[in-house]
Structures are given as structure tokens and as C-alpha cells.
């Protein structure tokens, strides 16, 4: 039996997760085929990064290098960054503007749709060499992916017939994105870091709201967080994504500026600039995050607006690419506020640092323990659905259920996994 198959899921409510899922290389390889190159939509970036025809950036779908570019007709095309000739990387930089992509190795030339348009020495030199007479360029383009955008967020799929993107997202997720991308945006910068952990441990972290007040002590010490705050976690009908939000208190006491510091703080800061926030949407939502299976979080934390793309590198390493943006009509004060609030997230952010640490702690403890299980029970076991409170890790179980379905894992104590029944279970 293959090693990936020896990992056991004892509970059909996914309250127990086999530890080997975080460290086994075989599991990682299978994820690339079954998930990242499977029937999912992968988040790749924002349209605002490539506003003009010819603009491109390189990224990853799972471990596979991809090129995302805008063609002359304004449409976005995504292809595998691998020359169809001898398999070399075609585009070698992070981003730029080009009318053609030319492979450095043998100068095969592709247009912005990934079609092969130029091959040197096609007829050889003085009648010798060259490509065979029947060579058809149309059969040698770059491998294209399906592409769809939602509100300027670019997604692609290796599956030639994925479900429509709006359906894949589901209504609560679309509402979150409608709010986050409510007007034209401007990219402010990128932050990247590599975590010596497994990408799924990070996804668990995103879908677990209970850790927020436990691992992250600073917001508690500053009186900015309590587990009794108004908030909720919503999922899509299949329970694979999670939308999580928290609201400021009615009296706005959490919207602190200098001089507005609440009493009873366990930690006294000399300068509150990074806590100073503005209710931009007029809905008192202080934190609004969306984790979409399998590779992205969208977030508004105070006025810090980001996408966070998860890039698995191996079973033991992943990279996070944080894209920070504001709105095109930001006033200078708001822009400064967004920059100050980097204190929370990213490689040097107080919350980001701790989430990365948690990912590594799981990694270090998993070695040699492939057949042990972790326990997920907050918010109850049993059916997977929405919760109207934050003391929950239910949506972590939702992540694992869809993961197992794609990977071909079956829980030991229940019927075969059938997504058609999940929506009804959540309601009951």
C-alpha cells in the first residue's frame, strides 16, 4: 500500500486529521495532481497588476510555474511557463511588458495567447536540418489554463471544464469580494515570506477563528479583541471555503486613535498610530477574511487590504505572497494608515509572525508521527456549516472534507464522500 493510502481518517465529521498529511512527500505529489491541477480555481493575482496589453507576471499554480498576461484584445491568458520544445522556462522574470515571449534556449517565440508564432531554422540551413515537413505550430503552443476573473481577482484552472467561477465561490464568498473590491484599486506593494511548514497547516489557521484570541495575545492585551465580539463564520454550500468577520463594538471604542486608548489595557503603547482605523464601509466590520480553497486568503484587517496567495514548495515548505492594495481614491491619511497597519500582517506583522510560527510548530512536531491524529472539536463535531460565533474551528473540518474528497480519501466510519449530500447536511 502506498504511504499516502496508509493515512487513516477515523471520523466522517473530520474531527481527526492524520499527522502524516503534513509531512509525507507522496501526499504532496498527489495534491499537485488531484488538487492544484484538479477541478479547483486557483487564485493567481489581481487584474490591476497587469492593466495594459502585454503586461505580465509570473506566478505558481501549486508548484507549477505560470505566466499570467493581458493580450492585445485586453483579455487575460494564463499558461504553463514551459516551452513546448525542450521544456525550458520561457519567462524568466517576475513581471514586465512584452509583445512576445521568447524562450532563451532555442528562441521559440510565443504570442500573448501562448500560441507558437516563431521557430528558428524551421527549414534548416542550406537545406540541412530544420523541423520535419509536417511540423504544425498550432500543435506546439504553451499549455493554456482556463481563466476567469471575479471583481478583478484572476483565477485559473488546469481542468478544461471547471464549474463556473461564481458557482465555485458561492454567494457568501461573492459578497465578501464585492465589498473588498467595491471600487478601483491600486497596488501598494508585495511582501513575501517562506514558512518551513505545510501549506495545509496554514489553511487550517485561516479557517480557525478560536486561535485569534489565544495565539495572538497582543490584540487581547490592547483590548482590541475578545471572543465575545460580534462576528460569524460562513461557508459555501460545500463547506470548502470560509468567510469570517468581526465587528467593532457599537460604541466604536475599538476604533482607537491617539488619545482614545481604552482603559484596562494590559500593555501601554506610547504611540497608537498603527491601531488608528477608519470605518471605510460604514458597517463596523473590523476584520473580514475569506479563505478560498485551495490557495488564497482575501482580507481586510482594519484598513489593511490584502490578497495572500499560498504557494506550496514541498511537503515541508510554502511561500506566502501578500499583495497590499488601497483604493484609487484614497486620501493621503488613509494611505498612511494602510502602511502603518502593516504592523499586523506580513513577515514582520504581529499577527503574521505568530501564524507563521504556528505553522512551523506543527511541522516540527509531525516528524515521525505520521499515524498520530490531531483533534478538531471547537464549535462541535458532526455536521459542517455556518456558526454565528467565533469560538469555532468547524470550517477547518470543512476544508478537510473537501480535501479528502479530491484526494480520494474515505473516512473509516461513514458512507463514501458525496458532495451532493453536504448542503442538505449543513441545513439539518
Amino acid at each position, binding site marked *: 500500500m502506498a504511504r499516502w493510502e496508509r493515512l487513516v481518517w477515523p471520523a466522517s465529521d473530520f474531527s481527526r486529521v492524520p499527522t502524516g498529511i503534513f509531512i509525507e512527500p507522496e501526499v504532496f505529489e498527489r495534491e499537485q495532481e488531484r488538487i492544484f491541477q484538479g477541478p479547483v480555481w486557483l487564485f493567481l493575482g489581481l487584474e490591476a497588476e497587469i492593466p495594459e496589453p502585454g503586461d505580465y507576471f509570473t506566478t505558481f499554480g501549486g508548484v507549477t510555474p505560470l505566466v499570467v498576461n493581458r493580450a492585445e484584445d485586453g483579455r487575460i491568458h494564463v499558461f504553463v511557463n514551459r516551452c513546448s520544445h525542450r521544456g525550458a522556462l520561457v519567462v524568466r522574470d517576475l513581471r514586465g511588458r512584452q509583445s512576445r515571449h521568447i524562450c532563451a534556449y532555442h528562441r521559440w517565440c510565443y504570442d500573448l495567447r501562448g500560441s507558437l508564432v516563431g521557430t528558428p531554422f524551421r527549414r534548416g540551413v542550406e537545406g540541412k536540418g530544420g523541423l520535419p515537413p509536417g511540423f504544425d505550430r498550432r500543435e506546439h503552443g504553451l499549455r493554456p489554463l482556463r481563466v476567469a476573473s471575479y471583481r478583478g481577482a484572476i483565477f485559473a484552472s488546469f481542468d478544461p471544464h471547471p464549474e463556473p467561477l461564481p458557482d465555485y465561490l458561492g454567494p457568501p464568498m461573492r459578497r465578501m469580494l464585492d465589498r473588498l473590491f467595491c471600487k478601483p484599486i491600486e497596488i501598494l506593494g*508585495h511582501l513575501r515570506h517562506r514558512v518551513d511548514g505545510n501549506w495545509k497547516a496554514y489553511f487550517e489557521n485561516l479557517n480557525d477563528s478560536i486561535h485569534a484570541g489565544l495565539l495572538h495575545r497582543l490584540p487581547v492585551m490592547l483590548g482590541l479583541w475578545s471572543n465575545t465580539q460580534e462576528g460569524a463564520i460562513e461557508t459555501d454550500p460545500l463547506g470548502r471555503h470560509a468567510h469570517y468577520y468581526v465587528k467593532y463594538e457599537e460604541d466604536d471604542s475599538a476604533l482607537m486613535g491617539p488619545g482614545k486608548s481604552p482603559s484596562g489595557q494590559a500593555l501601554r503603547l506610547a504611540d497608537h498610530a498603527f491601531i488608528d482605523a477608519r470605518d471605510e464601509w460604514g458597517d463596523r466590520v473590523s476584520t473580514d477574511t475569506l479563505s478560498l480553497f485551495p490557495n488564497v486568503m482575501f482580507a481586510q484587517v482594519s484598513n489593511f487590504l490584502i490578497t495572500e496567495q499560498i504557494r506550496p514548495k514541498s511537503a515541508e515548505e510554502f511561500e506566502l505572497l501578500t499583495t497590499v492594495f488601497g483604493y484609487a481614491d484614497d486620501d493621503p491619511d488613509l494611505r498612511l494608515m494602510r502602511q502603518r497597519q*502593516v504592523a499586523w500582517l506580513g513577515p514582520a506583522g504581529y499577527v503574521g509572525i505568530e501564524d507563521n510560527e504556528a505553522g512551523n510548530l506543527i511541522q516540527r512536531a509531525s516528524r515521525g508521527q505520521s499515524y498520530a491524529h490531531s483533534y478538531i472539536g471547537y464549535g462541535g463535531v458532526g455536521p459542517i456549516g455556518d456558526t454565528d460565533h467565533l469560538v469555532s474551528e468547524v470550517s477547518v473540518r470543512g476544508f478537510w472534507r473537501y480535501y479528502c474528497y479530491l484526494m480520494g480519501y474515505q473516512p473509516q466510519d461513514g458512507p463514501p464522500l458525496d458532495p451532493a449530500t453536504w448542503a442538505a447536511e449543513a441545513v439539518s
Partner: protein
Amino acid sequence: MSAAHARPAPDPALAARAQRLTPGNDGEPDAAAEQLRNFLYDYGHCLDDDRLEDWPAFFAENGSYRIIPRENLDRGMTFALMFLENRNQLRDRVLVIRKALVYAPRMYCHLIGSIRCRQGADSGRFDLRASCAVYATDIVEGTSKLFAAGRYDGQVAANADGLQFTRLDLILDTSSVDRQMPIPL
């Protein structure tokens, strides 16, 4: 050592020029350049010794500290991953590190070199640039690796308190940070 590797006799013209332009200094008296170099070395040693409480004192009251990925800067974006605008914010950062933050304790080792300083627009102010490499040692594993490469770009003021940064930017070549960057570099 063979004769072929022996150092050639110094060229008198070059030697005279070298005296005028001490390494890392354009026309400033040697003493000032030496002071600025030592200031920067002391800065690195302060962080290497985990004397974080002393770190804000290297800055003027309104001195700023930023870590900016070069990846952003090269595209005209100054977005910083650490952004502190004054000494109070620097002190707060240290307070949070000490009292609240969960992170991997690592030992840091700054190698600072290629220092250039120039008299700034105002007297008593100097513009400073230096290259830096920071090694991090995992205290549990005991292994060291290059954690960050980049350059310091700053402005130093000489006043009654000695030298202080009125601005210090670390332009970080290492775009993809190894797990986390809790401590200033």
C-alpha cells in the same frame, strides 16, 4: 609566499589620493568618518547582543525606521514591511516583542561593510549607505544561515547626544523572508 604574490610598492600619487579620500568618506575629516562607521557597527552589535531596549536610542526622537523590500522599491513603490515613524513607535515595537509576541528566538549576526558617508545638506548631518548581511542562528537547532542581505540607507545627525539616525531604511534584497522578521535588523 612567492615573490609574484608580494604586494607592489605603493604609487606615491595614489597614496596621496588615498589620504585625502579615506575609505567611505568624501572629503570629511577622518575622525567624523571613523565615528560614523563605529556608530553603525555599534548599531549592529546592539541588535546582535539582543539589547533591544537600547535600540531606540540610536534614533532621534522623530527618527524613522523602515524595512523596504527592494522588489517594491525597484518598481517605485516604497511600501515597507516594517514601518516605524518615531522613537516612541520603536520603543513600542520592542515592548511588543518582549511582552506579547510568539516567535522563534534566533541569534542575529550583522556583517556591515562598504560604508559610505557624505556630508548632508545641513551641517552636522550625514548621509550614509552601507551593505549588510545578517546571519540568523536557530537557537534550538544550532544552525546558522544567511537571513537577510541588503543595504542601509540613512541619515545621521550629530548633536549634543552624539550621533543619531534621523532616518534609517533597510532596503532588503531578500524579498522572501525566512518565516518571519520580528526583530528589527
